[in-house]
């Protein structure tokens, strides 16, 4: 891990959640940007699960679709947003990404791609901060402003941050493994490329006192569903994501974490 993964064909293998994705480009400048942005997640030795050719264009608007549109048509996944267009064939595991050379577009393309790959296997991308302490992973979910970046910033030195924005969950038997991601939020800090069994999921709320309260499975499911990143208009996959969310709240303890935004909140997270 961490080894520069360039080859003469200008390919990088970006390995997030142990799902390596090869990205090829003709642009040395874009390649350097990728190397910097995903430096902790490059793995030249990995066998890529998917391979993408990137085509850079100079226009800002690539698609008329302002919101993310993800469809499966004639055997191909099509992902469109104003600043990017991606198509890939799940049978050949190859695809093409058309975007302008900015880091946010490639980040979005990777997030959407991983959301699709995870959905098939029962994993999830969750709008949540994540951290590892004492070998256990904890997730902190909430809408923007709920405190994901704040609780990440307050983490003591013995805590390893997986992400302050997008958490990556894969199934492992009857539990889940949380993986670090390079998808950063306001903290603008890439997560550590590590993994740990998920011990608990906290629903964040800033409050006058620190408190952990249990929540019902129904409340947990509603909160988790609101926090899941999934974009495809595909009823089979939407139902699969729903089933995965149900399994998550049944298998992992979910709590409401009300917290004062200072370091003492981490005394509760052990």
């Amino acid at each position: 891990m961490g080894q520069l993964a360039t080859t003469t064909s200008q390919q990088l293998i970006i390995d997030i959640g142990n799902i390596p994705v090869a990205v090829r480009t003709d642009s040395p400048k874009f390649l350097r940007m990728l190397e910097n942005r995903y430096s902790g997640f490059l793995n030249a030795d990995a066998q890529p699960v998917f391979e993408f050719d990137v085509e850079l264009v100079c226009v800002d608007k690539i698609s008329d679709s302002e919101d993310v549109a993800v469809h499966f048509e004639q055997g191909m996944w099509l992902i469109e947003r104003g600043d990017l267009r991606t198509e890939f064939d799940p049978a050949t595991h190859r695809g093409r990404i058309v975007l302008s050379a900015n880091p946010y577009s490639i980040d979005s393309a990777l997030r959407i791609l991983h959301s699709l790959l995870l959905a098939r296997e029962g994993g999830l991308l969750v709008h949540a901060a994540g951290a590892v302490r004492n070998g256990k992973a904890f997730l902190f979910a909430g809408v923007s402003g709920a405190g994901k970046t704040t609780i990440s910033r307050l983490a003591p030195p013995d805590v390893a941050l997986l992400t302050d924005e997008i958490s990556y969950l894969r199934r492992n038997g009857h539990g889940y493994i949380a993986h670090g991601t390079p998808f950063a939020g306001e903290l603008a800090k890439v997560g550590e490329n590590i993994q740990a069994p998920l011990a608990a999921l906290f629903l964040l709320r800033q409050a006058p006192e620190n408190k952990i309260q249990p929540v019902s499975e129904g409340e947990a499911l509603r909160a988790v569903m609101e926090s899941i990143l999934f974009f495809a208009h595909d009823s089979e996959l939407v139902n699969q994501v729903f089933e995965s969310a149900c399994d998550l709240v049944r298998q992992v303890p979910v709590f409401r974490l009300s917290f004062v935004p200072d370091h003492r909140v981490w005394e509760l997270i052990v």
Partner: protein
Amino acid sequence: MSAVYIARATTVAARALAGEMMIMSAKDSTLFTLNPVGTVIWQAADGRTPLADIVQQKICAEFDVEPAEALKDAETFVGNLANHGILLVSDEPIAVVKPPAGASQ
């Protein structure tokens, strides 16, 4: 007035969690939580039993409600779920092709 038949859409995912029936509408990615009356209607929506019979035999038997008011509320509820593609509604019995998701949970 003709009978109204209702059936659970076969493409819908549903789970009972701690007594709450949660239903996912893949059509518009909306999550529904049914109250106890709604849950009874959902579970009884077999495509063969008229809605009026469901209300009379299940709702009025289990809950303290006036039959006419219960039927009116049930029709509103059914119409709402039908708009989201969760329930199928017909004036004839509906053949259910596949066991409904979550029906046994």
